[in-house]
């Protein structure tokens, strides 16, 4: 059983009472373990909303989101927080890190929240910083890191809890080309070598070129889904 994310008939509507706006409209999405998929589309197409629904940060108005066969739309707010901690890694567009903590402490934070022992945390942190090629920057505060380095630390943090998959919302949006490629290299390497599932929203061509599956959203509907790894998909009416 390799299905990680299974979104069924998911819709999210704003302004229900007045003029309904479908941020997500009847979306079906299926992500397998080890995928490296990009959600693309113009601004306002619903990429972030869909990520939020899959990540359990928001609840759909209709439909269900299954993560490893568990319908997370049925979970209470408190259980969802716990679920996210154990199962999902997040990388946001910017301001990912706590400014008063060092890079190492930022990564360690997730494991502290999970109640993992210090000795285990130390080993994992070392390993993660090796993977993001920043072992020499562990004790540096975010303000002293470049945007790209900060995003790499954010990736390390997202992986710290050994999640089922990582959701990244426009991870390269604020990065220069070199930093963006560097981050993508690391994400691709982690995907290939560690089989970590990545689903990210982007309209950055550099990212799209690296993705092995491209899901295009327009006005809250999936209009195309070109997959290198075969997936079940529903094409929306265009």
């Amino acid at each position, binding site marked *: 059983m390799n299905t990680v994310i299974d979104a069924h008939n998911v819709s999210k509507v704003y302004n229900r009472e007045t003029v309904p706006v479908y941020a997500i409209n009847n979306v079906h999405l299926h992500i397998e373990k080890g995928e490296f998929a990009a959600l693309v589309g113009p601004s306002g197409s619903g990429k972030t909303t869909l990520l939020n629904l899959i990540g359990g*940060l*928001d609840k759909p108005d209709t439909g269900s989101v299954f993560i490893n066969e568990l319908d997370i739309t049925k979970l209470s707010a*408190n259980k969802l927080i716990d679920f996210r*901690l154990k199962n999902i890694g*997040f990388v*946001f567009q910017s301001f990912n890190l706590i400014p008063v903590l060092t890079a190492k402490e930022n990564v360690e934070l997730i494991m502290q929240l999970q109640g993992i022992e210090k000795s285990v945390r130390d080993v994992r942190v070392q390993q993660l910083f090796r993977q993001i090629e920043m072992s020499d920057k562990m004790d540096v505060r975010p303000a002293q890191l470049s945007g790209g380095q900060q995003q790499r630390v954010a990736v390390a943090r997202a992986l710290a809890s050994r999640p089922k998959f990582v959701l990244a919302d426009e991870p390269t949006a604020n990065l220069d080309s070199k930093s963006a490629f560097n981050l993508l290299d690391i994400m691709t390497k982690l995907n290939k070598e560690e089989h970590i599932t990545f689903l990210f929203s982007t309209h950055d061509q550099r990212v799209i070129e690296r993705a092995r599956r491209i899901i295009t959203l327009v006005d809250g509907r999936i209009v195309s889904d070109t997959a290198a790894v075969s997936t079940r998909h529903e094409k929306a009416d265009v």
Partner: protein
Amino acid sequence: MWLIKMAWKNMWRNRSRTAITMAAIFFAVILSVIASSLKDGIFSNLVKNVVSFYTGYIQIHKKGFWDEQTLDNSFKSSSKTVRLIRGNKNVTAVASRLESFALASSVNITKGCLVAGIEPEKENRITFLEKKVIQGSYLLDTDYAVLLSQGLAERLKLTTNDTVVLIGQGYHGATAAGKYLVKGIVKFGSPDLNSRTLFMPLATAQNFYNADSMITSYVLSLRNTNNLQGIRSQLGEPLGRDFEVMSWEEMMPEVKQHIQTDSSNMKYVQGILYLLICFGIFGTLLMMMVERKFEMGMLVSIGMKKSKLIILLLYESVFTVLVGCLLGITASIPLVYYLNRHPIKMGGETAKVYERFGFEAIFPTSTEVSIFIYQGIVVLIIGLLLSLYPMYKVIRLDPVTAMKR
């Protein structure tokens, strides 16, 4: 532990803001402690002044004497009773008195007066009567002489070494009459006492009233005056039902009332100070919540439970309040002690008015430890109560909305 460490680091993320909040708490605590210690110090000094006028902190009479102050309500002085009283660790001095009334006359002027038979040396330890002598000299136990209050002496047109004639009713209806040398003149702050009081040694008074070994009261001074009612009960128990033990508060209810009224006014001042502290802390919390909205949304998104986030914010508030509070208390200690040793002195007309009424024209502070502890606890409670605001915001926090820019 890591939450505490993180809270401490968060506290210093905006140093200026934290410093401003701490400074607000620091100064408010100093002002609050000084206001409180001044209030207690002034009232304690006022009580000391009033008590040393005449009453002492506690008086012991035969039951019923206070309502009907006649020699018929006097009792036999007993060393056993004095021992019982002195058995209380809080009692520092006991003086016996025989008090009644008489007519005082000079050549052709007569005036009613309060005659107080006293044990000069012991009395001086309680009411510092010797200090009030403005002319002549203080009494000795063996003197057959009197001290006149300034107003009475002026009314009778008498001065030291003159003779005053006393006529009155003695014990059990006997006639009391005698003439006495005016050994000195005393000045009282209280206009009432100053106009009608006459002191003589206890033995001389007993002789004058034909009341051998009889006294009307024991006057007590105390080491610790904080728990008057407790001391009163402790004293009353061994003495039994034949005696009434009264504190100065019962003997002078008007002074107690004055202190209570002033104390309530002082509470408004303290209320304003606490309000300042509230604004200082709340302003910071408000700014902090706005500034860190995204971060809090992000923390909840990645899996930090809201309860943990609340604890984190609570630590931050408590640390800020605690540091400001401790610094404020630490700084106020030398200030309060200095003002206790070197009280604020009033000058000019105000000082004259105070002195006219027999009060020292000074505002000393109280160095009671409880004042510092109480103020610290009050400010801490304020900080904790205000922390309910971030808690409320975190409970209502929606990570998606919080992370929208």
